[in-house]
């Protein structure tokens, strides 16, 4: 009696827990609201293993509590000296065997399906993991050269068309993961991994699908995020057209000043203690003379992206100023390794606030 009362008291808590767990479906980075064919397949196996697991767990939990309660020490009770029961033991060897088969067969099926080569009409994209941002290179004309469109941290793909990624890494291992669109695949330096899926026809939306690096890659691993926009086919074509254009010319005097500063190749440190490379040492802006750096993200259309700094800051004037002033303050680790010369220096050491603001205005204008 006592136990059933406490069970009744536990029931609302259990229901609440299940409700909260299901609410996870609406979380922005959820793994259980699939929006592509591959994610659907994963969801199928996940739900199968989940419900089988739940059934087994509830059974074992009930047995554990039931046996412990029923056979508790009571006056007059003598333990039966049982050593085993071969028939029973065979039965509960067979139960897990059956469960394993039930889970293994669909697993093999999904592995086989996802290992097929991508269809020929698939959109081809190189995704490159770097400490700590993602570069995306498109091969739009199917010539094997991934040079038609280069962008960073924000990816646009059309709904309903297969997209295939070649996953690469430059420095350490990263992992490419957009939970609603596909399971993660690692980006391993020296290896090329493939991943392809087809977003649902109705997956197009203005809001981005969130992605994040899923293999520990150093100090700013937590801040290595990216976004995937699934567009309508028309929307995707428009985006491509805009991205393939050169960077916009400065619209006003302030932006003009910003562009000049942006294109300054080297800055001398105050006090004459050497210099640091200017923006173009690492960044490209197509059409701007000399801005052909390949080390950092391509900034040709940075103003049109929704975020900067690998998905951690909204693209706006204040954030751009703060980022250029001292990236390490916004994203610890951003200047951590001077040896590799791949990290962004704090420009507040060589530029005035006004100069940095001018650069920010210029960058915001790169729509």
């Amino acid at each position, binding site marked *: 009696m006592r136990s059933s009362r406490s069970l009744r008291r536990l029931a609302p808590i259990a229901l609440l827990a299940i409700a909260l767990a299901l609410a*996870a479906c*609406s979380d*922005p*980075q*959820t*793994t259980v609201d699939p929006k592509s064919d591959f994610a659907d397949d994963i969801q199928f196996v*996940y739900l199968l*293993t*989940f419900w089988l*697991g739940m059934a*087994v*767990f509830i059974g074992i939990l009930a*047995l*554990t509590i039931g*046996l*412990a309660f029923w*056979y*508790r*020490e009571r006056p007059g*009770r003598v*333990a*039966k*000296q*049982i*050593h*085993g029961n071969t028939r*029973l*033991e065979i039965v509960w*060897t067979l139960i*897990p065997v059956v469960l*394993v088969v039930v*889970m*293994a067969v669909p*697993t093999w099926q*999904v*592995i*086989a399906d996802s*290992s097929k080569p991508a269809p020929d009409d698939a959109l081809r994209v190189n995704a490159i993991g770097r400490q700590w941002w993602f570069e995306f290179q498109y091969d739009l004309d199917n010539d094997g050269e991934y040079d038609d469109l280069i962008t960073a941290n924000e990816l646009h793909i059309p709904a309903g068309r297969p997209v295939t990624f070649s996953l690469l890494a430059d*420095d*350490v291992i990263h992992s490419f*993961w957009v939970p609603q669109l596909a*399971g*993660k*695949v*690692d980006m391993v330096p*020296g*290896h090329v*991994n493939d991943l392809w899926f087809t977003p649902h026809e109705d997956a197009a939306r203005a809001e981005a699908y*969130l992605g*994040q690096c*899923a*293999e*520990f890659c150093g*100090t700013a*691993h*937590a801040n290595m995020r990216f976004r995937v926009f699934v567009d309508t086919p028309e929307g995707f074509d428009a985006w491509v057209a805009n991205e393939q254009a050169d960077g916009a010319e400065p619209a006003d005097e302030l932006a003009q000043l910003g562009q000049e500063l942006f294109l300054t190749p080297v800055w001398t440190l105050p006090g004459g203690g050497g210099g640091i490379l200017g923006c173009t040492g690492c960044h490209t802006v197509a059409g701007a003379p000399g801005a052909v750096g390949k080390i950092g993200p391509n900034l040709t259309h940075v103003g049109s992206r929704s975020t900067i700094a690998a998905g*951690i800051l909204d693209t706006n004037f204040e954030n751009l100023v703060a980022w250029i002033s001292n990236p390490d303050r916004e994203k610890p680790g951003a200047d951590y*390794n001077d*040896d*590799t010369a791949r990290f962004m220096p704090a420009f507040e050491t060589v530029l005035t606030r006004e100069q940095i603001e001018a650069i920010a205005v210029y960058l915001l204008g790169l729509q």
Partner: protein
Amino acid sequence: MATVAGTMAAPTAEGVVWSWLTTVDHKRIGVLYGVSAFIFFLIGGVEALLIRAQLAVPNGGVIDPELYNQLFTMHALTMIFLAVMPLGAAFFNFMIPLMIGARDVAFPRLNALSYWIFLAGGLVLTSSFFLGGAPDTGWFAYAPISGGTYSGSGMDYYVIGLLILGLSSLAAALNFAVTIINMRAPGLTMMRMPIFVWMTLIVAFLLILALPVLTVALVQLLFDRQFTTSFFLPSGGGDPILWQHLFWIFGHPEVYILILPAMGIVSEVLPTFSRKPLFGYAAMVFAGVAIGFLGWAVWSHHMFTTGLGAVPRVVFATSTMIIGVPTGIKIFNWLSTMWGGSIRFTTAMYFSVSFIALFTIGGISGVMHASPPVDQQQQDTYFIVAHLHYVLVGGAIVGIFSGLYYWWPKMTGRFLSETLGKWNFWLMFIGLNMTFFPMHFLGVAGMPRRIYTYDEGLGWEFWNMFASVGALILAVGVLVFVINVARTMRQPKTAGDNPWDGSTLEWATSSPPPEHDFDAIPEVRARDPLWYDRDHGLSQPEGDPDEHIHMPPPSYYPLILALGVLMLGVGPLSHLAVTALGVPVIIYAIWGWVLEPTE
């Protein structure tokens, strides 16, 4: 006693400190292991609490990312290598000779050496916090981030520390394998051995075969970092995936090294307090052996997202799922052991019964991501964190606490308080479920592991705060245990030889056991020997009170040899002259060791 030229006189047991430093008594070494490992367990717990403090709220500002990365790396290393493994070793040391009716392990001095080398390795690893930063690449140290370009001196401490700890575990494993195979009392055949002894034997063989693979991987990493080879560095033609294979060929058997001792403990506690023999003894043994074997065929399931081909994924998924079969057999047999019993609910029994349910949760989530497609969503998320903590906390730690409550009267002659014990149990039980169960939800909601910060609005706030509160409750539970231990030290020694009416040989001697363990070597006539004797009106042989039982004398050399090994290891971390000085120390210690009379 005459001394051999050049060696020291055998130590006498006069000073308390020296008697512990030079002891070769397996029970004292067990205590040393237990106390050291518990201190490391508390350190690892503090590391975990700092992690939970940082993650309690979004964009938390408690610790900076560099320290966070060191903390989660060291939390894993501390808990795996410095807490759970040596806590298992503490039980092996104290209980195995008693459970097989022997007076010591096969190599008492080697046993002492294992402990002192373990301590040296633990100190090397932990000291890195104060000497330029702890390892910060995760305990798995994936190349190339563990190479010289991307990580600092902490990784050298990692390599040296783990090499030293591997030496310690290898020595201990060899010792226990020989002890169990060769030192059993008359009549104690293999199929009469307690399950805990069986699990220890399997763990010993897993260590013996898995550690050399880790050693090779660590040596190659050391060469990559210090001698410009490129085993794992793609920039020089090497392959980072090779490290992952070598690491997990060690790393997966390591998982069973951590959990099998707890399974052994539970298999002792459940029969004793159910007052009936273990259900399906033979099946339990074979299931344990099967898990030990299969543990070698599943390592690549840690690598499902690395771009393995379809065939390896199918093979390793299947082999991993198959491990569910022997594990299922164990769970059903534990349950059936309670069936028809007359169960006394002591604290030890609380822990063991909860072990069944908690380990089942970890087992089931493990089978879920045995499926590579599912793993592609769950790998490196909090779902995995939940899974592994249900296995290691809900499994290994809960099993170890069960063992502590069960064998404490045997080890000390005193009972731990049952009242505090129940508080201890419920606080830990509630705390660990509050901490780790919501991590399933976080993983499903897409929260990756090893991130020191996260944004609000991702639906992760509530359960992170909930888990952090749970971690505090778990910590209070552990604190209650510490209080219970402190309190018991002032209790009188009231435990008789066999306070729980246990069936195995350790209960045939006094509590705590004399230095020579048994006045007379016990005789075993059946499985569950003491119950057989009880039911058949038999008794164990009495010792002759006048007989002098010769025990191996204490020795300085294990301590000196461990010091030499420590110097050898510290050299590359500080100055190579230390290594050079360590060599004569080692030679001296081995010389003295060999020539020292042991009779």
